[in-house]
């Protein structure tokens, strides 16, 4: 029977260990596994235990902490730009205080803004389950998914926006509204003197027409909009600015690590660092094509020795994730060099170590947002092979900061080529690091925000360069 036609039959926990697979499990996961059917069906070689709950967050860094990374002149320039904004007030509004990329960004951005004396307040909209079901539906629809909006759905959206609008005060100089959920707060614009900015973190290139037509009149009342990529925008009558998503080089996911810690993580997971390590860090999601990554690895392995690490989450709390993980396990078969790790969400240090231990980082997505795992790998000077989708081509400039691929075969060829041309691979890694440093760090975005605030408040006028 051809390999691809085999039925996916996840092994029971008691089944003998066949390959070299490791999993990370919390105490509760282990307990659940002993009393419930095995989901996800990860065969484990060793139990690498991490904390049951997320560790307390580290205090946010100060601006000067970044001087060793971007240079003191850059810090001075940021402080200079912020000088004109001292005492100005900003309100940021989004839909969740914890979890999700936006909350992660705001948690790092706001302390830096406060340090620069730009008084920034963060508020979160509230709503019932019906509201968040609607906004989840909107989110998927705006990404091009199938959706059947009704008048009732639109009414729920407007009702909760109105409730939040009545609850909140709008007295600041600038309001930054993140994503579609609170977009209708713009109705307060007439009542205040502030400037309104809509920060869209999602890809609007192919939105559900009805949902977009409903939202567009709200969006076009803003004074400015911000998108993560030119490819994610719509034709709008208001200015659109480009702010790349960013990573914090001092966060647990990206900070420098002691070599001994990297080695320990590899030892715990059974990774042999004397041989090339290829890694994809992603949720177990078909759009990340983990099965395609294994197929590419198998093709490449006919010619070059390497190990494959697939590390991610989503298989424990997402039924579809568990199915995808089972497919991945099936595709990996008994190969002891395929290491599959189902990590809990608070594994930032482990992911950091895995990325740093990698010879090549793959992100073979079939569909992608901006792809911050690519940014993380570039920052760590890793050679990146990535699918040419979403925001990835902005980061991976083919053959300059990494390589772009469109197929399993292309991915396999690039693995072979880069493992046998280490000088070229290292050059891609160096360029990738510089690319991320120049464009995708938190500090670059602090600067962008400050310039935009100045423009919105009429505190600067762009020079005519022509």
């Amino acid at each position: 029977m051809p390999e691809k036609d085999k039925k996916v039959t996840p092994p029971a926990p008691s089944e003998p260990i066949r390959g070299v697979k490791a999993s990370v499990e919390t105490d509760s996961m282990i307990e659940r596994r002993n009393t419930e059917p095995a989901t996800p069906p990860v065969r484990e070689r060793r139990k690498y235990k991490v904390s049951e709950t997320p560790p307390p967050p580290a205090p946010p860094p100060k601006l000067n902490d970044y001087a060793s990374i971007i240079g003191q002149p850059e810090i001075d320039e940021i402080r200079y730009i912020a000088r004109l904004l001292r005492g100005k007030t900003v309100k940021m509004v989004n839909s969740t205080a914890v979890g999700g990329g936006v909350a992660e960004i705001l948690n790092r951005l706001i302390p830096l803004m406060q340090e620069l004396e730009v008084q920034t307040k963060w508020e979160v909209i509230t709503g019932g389950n019906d509201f968040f079901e609607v906004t989840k539906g909107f989110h998927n629809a705006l990404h091009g998914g199938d959706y059947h909006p009704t008048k009732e759905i639109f009414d729920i959206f407007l009702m909760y926006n109105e409730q939040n609008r009545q609850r909140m005060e709008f007295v600041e100089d600038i309001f930054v509204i993140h994503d579609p959920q609170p977009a209708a707060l713009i109705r307060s614009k007439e009542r205040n003197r502030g400037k309104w900015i809509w920060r869209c973190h999602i890809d609007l290139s192919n939105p559900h027409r009805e949902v977009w037509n409903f939202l567009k009149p709200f969006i076009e009342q803003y004074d400015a909009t911000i998108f993560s990529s030119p490819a994610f925008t719509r034709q709008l009558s208001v200015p659109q600015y480009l702010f790349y998503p960013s990573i914090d080089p001092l966060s647990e996911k990206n900070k420098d690590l002691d070599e001994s810690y990297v080695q320990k993580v590899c030892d715990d997971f059974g990774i042999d660092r004397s041989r090339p390590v290829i890694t994809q860090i992603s949720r177990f999601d078909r759009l990340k094509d983990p099965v395609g990554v294994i197929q590419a690895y198998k093709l490449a392995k006919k010619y070059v020795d390497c190990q494959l690490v697939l590390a991610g989450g989503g298989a424990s709390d997402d039924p579809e994730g568990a199915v995808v993980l089972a497919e991945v396990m099936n595709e990996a078969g008994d190969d002891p060099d395929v290491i599959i790790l189902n990590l809990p969400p608070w594994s930032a240090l482990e992911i950091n170590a895995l990325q740093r231990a990698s010879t090549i980082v793959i992100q073979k997505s079939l569909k992608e947002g901006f792809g911050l795992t690519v940014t993380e790998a570039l920052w760590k000077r890793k050679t990146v092979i990535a699918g040419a989708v979403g925001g990835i081509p902005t980061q991976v400039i083919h053959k300059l900061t990494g390589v772009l691929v469109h197929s399993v075969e292309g991915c396999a060829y690039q693995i072979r080529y880069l493992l046998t041309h280490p000088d070229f691979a290292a050059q891609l890694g160096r360029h990738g690091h510089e690319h991320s440093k120049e464009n995708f760090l938190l500090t670059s975005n602090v600067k962008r925000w400050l310039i935009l605030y100045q423009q919105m408040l009429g505190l600067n006028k762009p020079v005519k360069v022509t």
Partner: protein
Amino acid sequence: MARNLMLRWAKAPFYFNSAAHLTRIGNQRATTLGEFAQAREKVPEDAIFQHTFQTLQEHHYIREGFSNDFAHWTFASCNEIELAERLSSVDVREYTSIKSLRDRVFGIVSEYLNRNERARERAAFEPFYFCASDTIVIPTPWVARNLAEFTDALRKVSIHSIHYHFINARLRLKLNTNDFSLWLENDLELGALADRINRIDIYTSTLNDVRNQILKIVENAA
């Protein structure tokens, strides 16, 4: 003698500035080379600036294979290698106005499409999104009244400052030179030094390389 040159007072000091940019996404995009060519008259000047002068700063660390966004798009998304090579050869240092740079870029594309009619309607793998740059000037605390202060400051400023004075200056000055060379020639009467600095190749050097080469030229002269 050398010490005298380093400490010779300039007629006027050199004030180091820097620049910061915000990228605006335009509503124009091209999905084929034909659409790109049609954008010739519609694309604003600050978009031409963004995709030529400004992109050099954003990719300042690449010494090989990156010249401007137009060349990169025709190579990576249109697979028109000859056109990409010709667009890559456009050297922004030869242009002191965006108008002449626009004419050159679109002239190359038009000429290519006249010879390769089928390339006109072929869909690009990715559209070209015209963006534009809003630039603000940022003063720095560094001022040079002689070569010693000049080299000291040059070591300390950001690469954005070097891009502002060494590359973008041409559009501001409307001259085929840069702020550093102009100061050396006019205020220190060091024309030969100014010429040597103006000949530094920005396409085969990173901005940090440019910084180091200027320092080396000045220190060797002294």
